[in-house]
């Protein structure tokens, strides 16, 4: 998509026209949006989605109720926006980690998994929001969660050597298995030690692909 042409008023703002204060105001607005999304992540992690009320969110974020409603339709939209932002961030980190291992799939999977677990450890509240609360918050959140899983399934598929010997659903079961282990760790309030899972989960993910690689090597040697 071509970049949108800048509107005259936007240009005016940029060059310090009548809206001299617009830039910082925009910055403040983004910052407030961010605070609202952080607040819902922290609150739902502590007390669950159902128990979290709009009043709690605005108090926690330190913004006016009106500000929340200027930015979001309601609680569900705040939750979904916060979910999307977190998934985008973790996905970006995982993709970046994978990209560092060109042509070396074992290192790539391990690096991607490591980046994912590091995010969970660094951002336990967001991890809980995405991997625990999102499953049950609302039907739309359940679908969003499923879409995010699909994103990781596809990324895994792109990161491993192509093979027609493995089950078609192999990435779905592997990603689902990893998610279940991490989900339980978060539930036990042990997200901060998520990195401890790296060696075991990497082994779990790599085993099927290694099996195929070895079988193919064997055929070449035979």
């Amino acid at each position, binding site marked *: 998509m071509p970049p949108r042409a800048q509107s005259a008023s936007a240009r005016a703002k940029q060059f310090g026209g009548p809206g001299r204060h617009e830039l910082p105001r925009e910055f403040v607005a983004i910052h407030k949006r961010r605070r609202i999304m952080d607040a819902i992540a922290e609150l739902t992690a502590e007390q*669950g989605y*159902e128990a979290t009320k709009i009043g709690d969110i605005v108090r926690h974020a330190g913004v006016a109720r009106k500000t929340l409603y200027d930015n979001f339709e309601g609680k569900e939209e705040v939750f979904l926006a916060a979910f999307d932002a977190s998934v985008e961030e973790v996905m970006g980190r995982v993709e970046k980690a994978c990209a560092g291992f060109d042509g070396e799939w074992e290192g790539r999977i391990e690096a991607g998994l490591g980046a994912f677990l590091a995010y969970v450890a660094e951002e336990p509240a967001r991890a809980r929001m995405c991997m625990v609360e999102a*499953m*049950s918050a609302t*039907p739309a959140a*359940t*679908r969003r969660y*499923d879409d995010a*899983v699909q994103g990781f399934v596809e990324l895994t598929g792109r990161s491993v050597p192509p093979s027609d*010997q*493995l*089950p*078609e*659903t*192999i990435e*779905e*079961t*592997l*990603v*689902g*298995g*990893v*998610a*279940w*282990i991490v*989900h*339980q760790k978060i*539930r036990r309030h042990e997200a901060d030690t998520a990195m401890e*899972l790296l*060696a*075991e*989960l990497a*082994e*779990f993910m790599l*085993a*099927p692909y*290694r*099996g*195929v690689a*070895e*079988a193919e090597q064997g055929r070449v040697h035979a």
Partner: protein
Amino acid sequence: MERLPRGRHGLSPEFVAQNQRDRLLAALAEILYERGYEETTVAMVGKRAGVSKSDFYKRYESKDACFLAAYDDVVERIRETVRVACAGKGEWAARALDALEALLVFIVDDPARARLVLVEGLRAGKGVYDRYQEALQSFVPYLRDSAPAPAGGPRPPEATDEAVVGGIASLLARRMLAGEIEPVGEFLPEIGEFTLTPYLGAAEARRIISER
């Protein structure tokens, strides 16, 4: 499920109560399947089951209570299905595949009940989550205690058993959420290979599946 005759029928109150409970659980699974948890009401379930509202509340205190009872009932059915399949004779791998096959047959035969456990269980809130986790955990010993180690290799890492069970549950739940029930019946080679590989190695897993 058959409704009981009206009026004087000489059936014991216990029999009538049990029959009503069975009908309510079956009706709840159907309505949930059609409409999801939020939209399902006590009135709909009672109507489908042919049980009056006042009788509903004699059997279950609320929609949630009825849901939990239905949940426990389905988990028990699935556990029994798997237990019977695993109790057969033969190698571990053959019994594991029998159990997976029985699970898939259960899902295709009764998608409403299967969805109740695999999809709605994660969505219906806190009380149910513990049951979901416990149900998944109850399949872990079939792997942890009975699966062999790969030839010449060590046992797979501790997390593997739970990851295998969780991975299968996740795949099945995703397909049920998408309304793709039919293909699930064809999943045996897929989830069979996924399950056997960590314990037998990929080559041996593929050989067993292809010979089945």
